């Protein structure tokens, strides 16, 4: 018999807003891991995702601004995964409107994949926060 076991059941449950690392990690690459005090992992993720996005921009990759067909829509969703990087690049007018050279096509893929990798990193930060993945 363990009459006082009920309060102990919630001892390891996460405190506060558990979605904060997810949202922060989506807005700023690596920020979700910084919030759960995984400094090294966060720095490496930020470096990898930021490098990929910047490489895509300097290769004159296309930053999707609207969706005319299903492929544009998928690219737009991928770009949105970069969070503030995408918003900043739209505001500052980075990237090309049209893909004219082969390198720009590579760049477009780099930008989309950077967004998708950022979503994976943000979900990983959320899993660390909730305890689904051990710290």
């Amino acid at each position: 018999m363990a009459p006082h076991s009920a309060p102990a059941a919630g001892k390891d449950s996460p405190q506060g807003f558990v979605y904060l690392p997810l949202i922060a990690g989506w807005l700023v690459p690596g920020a979700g891991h910084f919030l759960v005090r995984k400094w090294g992992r966060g720095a490496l993720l930020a470096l990898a995702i930021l490098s990929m996005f910047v490489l895509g921009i300097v290769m004159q990759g296309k930053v999707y601004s609207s969706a005319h067909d299903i492929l544009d829509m998928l690219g737009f969703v991928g770009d949105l995964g970069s969070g503030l990087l995408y918003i900043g690049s739209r505001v500052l007018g980075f990237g090309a409107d049209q893909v004219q050279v082969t390198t720009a096509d590579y760049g477009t893929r780099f930008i989309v994949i950077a967004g998708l990798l950022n979503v994976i990193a943000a979900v990983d930060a959320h899993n660390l926060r909730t305890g689904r993945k051990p710290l």
Partner: protein
Amino acid sequence: MFSPSHFTAVLLFALCASTVFGITMRETPRRMLRYGLYCFALFVGSAIVLSWGMYLIAR
């Protein structure tokens, strides 16, 4: 404008993607490093194999 060769673009892509995969898909630093290297080798290796395959088909 940065204009890498196709292979350089593959190397840069593989480096960044395998870094993220390694960190997010494994739990300990040693396993992260091993999985990251594994992903990098698969990215680059599959690009080389597919390139040779397409070259031989086109001949």
